C-alpha cells in the first residue's frame, strides 16, 4: 500500500524563559494511504504538536514530514497552505467554524478556495448527509455543539482530502452526541476512502481505528497495528 504520510526523526523544541523545552523527540513513522490511525497519550505528551507538524501547521526543529510525497519542511507557509487545501481536511475539538459564515458557507470555503464549480450544491449535499439539511443558513452560534461538529465534518470532507486530521473530535461533546459524530466521521471516511488520523485520549474512540500510536513525554512508546 502507498504511504500517505512519512515522518522521519521529527523533533520540536521551544525556547522560552532561558531554557529549552523539547516537546517531541526523534519521532519516525509512516502511515499507509486509506488507513485509520489514532495517536493517544496523556495531556502534555506532545500529540497535538505532532498533529500540527504532520498537517503542516507548524515547522519541526529537525526531521522531515512528507505528506502525499510532498516534503513539507521545504515549503513556505503559503505553499503549505495550498497543500492543506489540496490534500488535508481538519476536525478540531472546538469545531473552529467561522462565526460570521452560515453552515453552508463554512462548508463551501475549501471548495471555493480551489476554484471549483457547483460548490453550493455539493456543500448542500454534504450537509444533508450530515443531517443538517434544515440548518444550512444557520450561523455557528445558532447551532448546538454536535451540529457544529457535524458542519465541521462536512467541511473537512468537502474537498475530498487525501488525509483527515481530527484533534479530539469528541472532546467538547456529551456521550450521546459523541457517538453520532463518531459514526458520521467513520461513515464519511469509509465512503471517501480517506486516511484518518485522530489525536485523542479517548481510548474507546482510538479502539475504532486500525492502528494506535502511543506517545508519552514526546516519544513514541507504542505502535499497535490492529486487525
Amino acid at each position, binding site marked *: 500500500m502507498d504511504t500517505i504520510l512519512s515522518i522521519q526523526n521529527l523533533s520540536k523544541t521551544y525556547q522560552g524563559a532561558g531554557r529549552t523545552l523539547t516537546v517531541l523527540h526523534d519521532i519516525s513513522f509512516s502511515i499507509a494511504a486509506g488507513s485509520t490511525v489514532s495517536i493517544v497519550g496523556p495531556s502534555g505528551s506532545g500529540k497535538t504538536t505532532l498533529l500540527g507538524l504532520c498537517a503542516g501547521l507548524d515547522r519541526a526543529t529537525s526531521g522531515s514530514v512528507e505528506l502525499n510525497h510532498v516534503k513539507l519542511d521545504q515549503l513556505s507557509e503559503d505553499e503549505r497552505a495550498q497543500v492543506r*487545501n489540496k490534500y488535508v481536511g481538519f476536525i478540531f475539538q472546538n469545531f473552529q467554524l467561522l*462565526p460570521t*459564515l452560515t453552515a453552508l458557507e463554512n462548508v463551501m470555503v475549501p471548495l471555493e478556495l480551489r476554484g471549483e464549480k457547483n460548490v453550493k450544491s455539493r456543500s448542500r449535499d454534504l450537509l444533508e448527509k450530515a443531517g443538517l439539511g434544515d440548518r444550512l443558513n444557520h450561523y455557528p452560534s445558532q447551532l448546538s455543539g454536535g451540529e457544529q461538529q457535524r458542519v465541521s465534518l462536512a467541511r473537512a470532507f468537502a474537498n475530498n482530502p487525501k488525509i483527515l486530521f481530527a484533534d479530539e473530535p469528541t472532546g467538547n461533546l456529551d456521550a450521546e452526541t459523541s457517538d453520532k459524530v463518531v459514526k458520521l466521521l467513520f461513515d464519511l471516511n469509509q465512503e471517501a476512502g480517506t486516511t484518518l488520523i485522530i489525536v485523542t485520549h479517548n481510548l474507546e474512540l482510538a479502539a475504532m481505528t486500525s492502528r494506535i500510536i502511543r506517545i508519552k513525554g514526546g516519544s513514541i512508546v507504542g505502535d499497535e497495528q490492529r486487525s
Partner: protein
Amino acid sequence: MDRERFTYKKKINLPWLFTMAWRDSRRNRSRLLLFVSSIILGIAALVATFSFGYNLQNDIDKQAKTLVGADLVIQGNKPPTPQLQTILDSIGNERSQERSFASMVYFVKDSGTRLVQVRALDGSYPFYGELETTPASAGPHFRKGRNALVDKTLMLQFNASIGDSIQVGDIKFAITGTLNKAPGRNTISTTVAPPVYIPLQFLDSTGLVQKGSRIAYNYYYKFNNEADVDAVVRDLESKLDQESMDYDTVEERKRNTGRSFEDFTQFLSLISFVALLLGCIGVASAIHIYIREKISSIAILRCLGVNSTQAFFIYLIQIAGIGLLGSVLGAILGTLIQQILPTVLQDFLPVDVAVAVSWKAIAQGLALGLVISILFALLPLVSVRKVSPLYTLRISFEHARLRDPAKWIVYILIVGFVYGFCKWQIGSYMQAAAFTIGILIAFFILVLVARLLMWIVRRFFPGSWNYLWRQGFANLYRPNNQTITLVTTIGLGVAFIGTLYFIQGILINRVSLTASGNQPNMVLFDIQSGQKDSVADMAVQHGLPVVQQVPIVTMRIEEVNGMNAEDVRRDTSARISERAFEWEFRVTYRDTLTDSEKLTRGKLGAPVTSPNQPIYISVEEDYARRVRLQMGDTVLFNVQGTLVKTIIGSMRQVDWQRVQTNFRVVFPSGVLEEAPQFHVLITRVPSPEVSAKFQQAVVRRYPNISIIDLGLILSVLDDVLNKIGFVIRFMAGFSIITGLIVLIASVLISKFQRMQESVLLRTLGASRRQILIITALEYFFLGALASATGLLLAMAGSWALAKFSFEARFTPSWLPIILLFIIISSLTVLIGLINSRGVLNKPPLEVLRRE
C-alpha cells in the same frame, strides 16, 4: 494512489476575496462603521475647505472684473508729471480718476468725528460691477452734486440717515446714499478707515489737498478691446516705474486675490487635515482590536488553505470598503458644511461666493479618505500575514507574536503621505517638513506622556488605596487599554484649540498693553507747520499731555555712493539692494535720541549751520542691514524735488513696539526746516468722552488733521481677531469632535474588552455602584490626563510663539484653561459611563450569554 506532482500556484481570486470580506464583516458592520465614523468629520472638513476654495477661485475668476472695476488701474502716491499725465489722459476707451486719502470727517447732526478714507471720484467708475448703495440710484448719481456716499458702518455708528450732512475738510456734503459694497473691497479692509465717496470736482474746495498731504492717485480705464490692455501696460511699464507708479490689471488682481485666499484655504485645509489624522489614529487603534478579535477566524482560514496574501486582502477589502463609506459620508457632510463657510467668512471675501457642489473637492476627499484609512489600518493589518494556522490548535500560544517589521514601512508611508499632503497644500518643501515634524513631535510627546503615565501608575501606585481606586487606575495599563489612543487624540485636539485660544489672547493682550497704563493712545497727524502750536495748545486746554510732537518730511533715495536705481539694477555686483530706492521715507530731524532709541554705531549728526557743512544722518540698524547700507555711505535724497546729499554718520536700534513715532532715517536739525512737511502729535486721552470732545474740537478747527484713536483700533482688532478666531475655531472644532468620536469609538471597543471583566466582577458580587465608580475613575484619569497634556502642550507652544515670534509676554488666563479641562474630563467620563450602562443594567448571565 496518484503521485501527482505538487506545484505551488499563487492565485488571487479577487471575486472570492470580496465575497469572503463581505461574509466576514457580517456581524461586525456596525462596529466597522463606528471605527470609520472617526474619519467622517476630517473628510467633511477637508471637502468643505476644498469646495470652498475651488468655488472661491471660480468666483474670483468669474467676478475678477468687478474686483477691479476696470480693465486697468494705475496708482501712485504723488501726482504724475505733466508728460505722464498726457499719456494717462489718452489711453483707454473710458477713463475715471480718484484721489484717496485718510482724513477726519465730521457728522454734523451727531457732532461726531471719525477717521475715514476719503475717495474723491469722477467718471463712471466702476466700469464693471457697481458701487452697491442704498438707495441703489445713489451709486451712479452722487457725482452730480455736493453729495457723499458713506460707508454703512459709519452710518450706523453715527446714527446718520440719507439727507444728513457730513463735513469733509472745509465743505459740507449731503449724504445721498449708504455705501454697502465697493468693487474688490471686503468689510474687514475698510474697518479702520471706512470709505466715504465724494465727487472729485469738489476735492480742492475741501482744502484737504496741500503740499505734503499723503494722497493716492488712482486712474481707472476701460478698454473696448481687452487685448489692448497688455499692449498699453507693456508700453507704459518703464515710464510708470520711473515715476514710482504701479498698475493693476484684471489678470493681476485675479492672481493676487486668488493667491491670498489660497493661503487661507490652505491653512484651513491643514487644520482639517489634523482632524483627519486624529480620526485615523482612532481607525488604526480600532482596527488593531478588530484584527486581534479576528485572529482565530484568520487561523481557521489559513488551516483551510488561505494564503497570507489572501487573508491580508480579505481584511484590506473590508477596511477599504468602510474607508470609502466613511469618505462618502464625510464628503456629503462636507458639501453641506460648505454652505456655511461663505456666511462665516463673508466679511473677508471680496466676491460673492456661490455654494456649488464641487465634484473635484468631493473626488479629492474620497481619494484622501480611502488612502489614509487604508494607510493607517495597514499598521495593524500587516500583522494578519503573520497569523499562524497553528493558532487553531493552541489558543494562547501565538497571541502576542504579531510584530511585523513591515510596520516600519507603513510608518514611513504614513509620514511620507502626511508630508506629501502638506507639500501639496503649502507648496513649500521646508514649511511642509516643519508642519510634519511639528505634528510628529506633538504625537511623540503625547505618546510619551501616556506611556510615562502607565509606567508611573504601574510602578508607584500605592497598594494600600481603596480597591475601586486601584482597579480604576489599573485599567490604565492593563492589556487592551485605551490610554495611548485617547491621550493622543483628545490631547492633540485640546492642544490645538488651546493654542488658537492663547494666541488670540496674546495678540489682544499685546495691543491692550500698549493702550493701557500711561502709554500714549492717540496720534494726530497731517498737522501743518502753521497749525502745530495751536494744536498743542488745544491739547493742553483739554488737559491732555503733549507726549511727542515731531515734524515729518517725505523723501526718496535718489543715489547711494553715486549709483542710482538703474545703475544698481544693471551692476549685479553692486552692494546696495534695489529695494533701497523703492521706499518712500518719512523722515524727521532732531539732535537727540528718544527713549525708544539706542545708538549702536557712530554718533548723531551735529546741527547743520552752514550750507557747506556735511549732513550726517542716522539710519535704523535693521533697515540698513536689509538694504545693505553701511556707515560712511553717501546717500542722495530727493526731498520732493530738491536733492540733498548726506552721509551715514550713525546707526540706531529702535524699539518699534512703542506707541510713538519712530524713524528709519533721522536728519540733524538745520536741513529740513523749510521743506514741505507735516507734524505728528502724540497724546494720551483718559476716556472715550474726552477723546470725542478733543477730536471734535480739532476737526472743527483744522479739518485736515487726521486722528487715530488706539482705543478704536483696539476694538477693531479685537473684532477682526474674533472673526478670524471664529473661523479657525469652527474648523478646529472638527478636531475636538473627531477626538470625541474617537473617544466614543474607543470606549465602545474597550467595552467589549471590559464587558467580561465587569460581568466577572458582578458575578463575584460587585455592586452596580462599585462598577460605576471603577469605570468613572478610569475615564476621568484618561480625560484629565489627555486634556492636561493637551493644555500643557498648548501653553508651551503659545509661550514659545509669544517669546520668539510675537516678542510678547505670555500670561494665560486660568479660568478658560480650568473650564476646558473640566469640560473635556467630564465629557470623557460621561461617554464612558453611557457606554458601560449595558453591562450595569443587565443581569450578568444575560450579558455572558449574549457575548
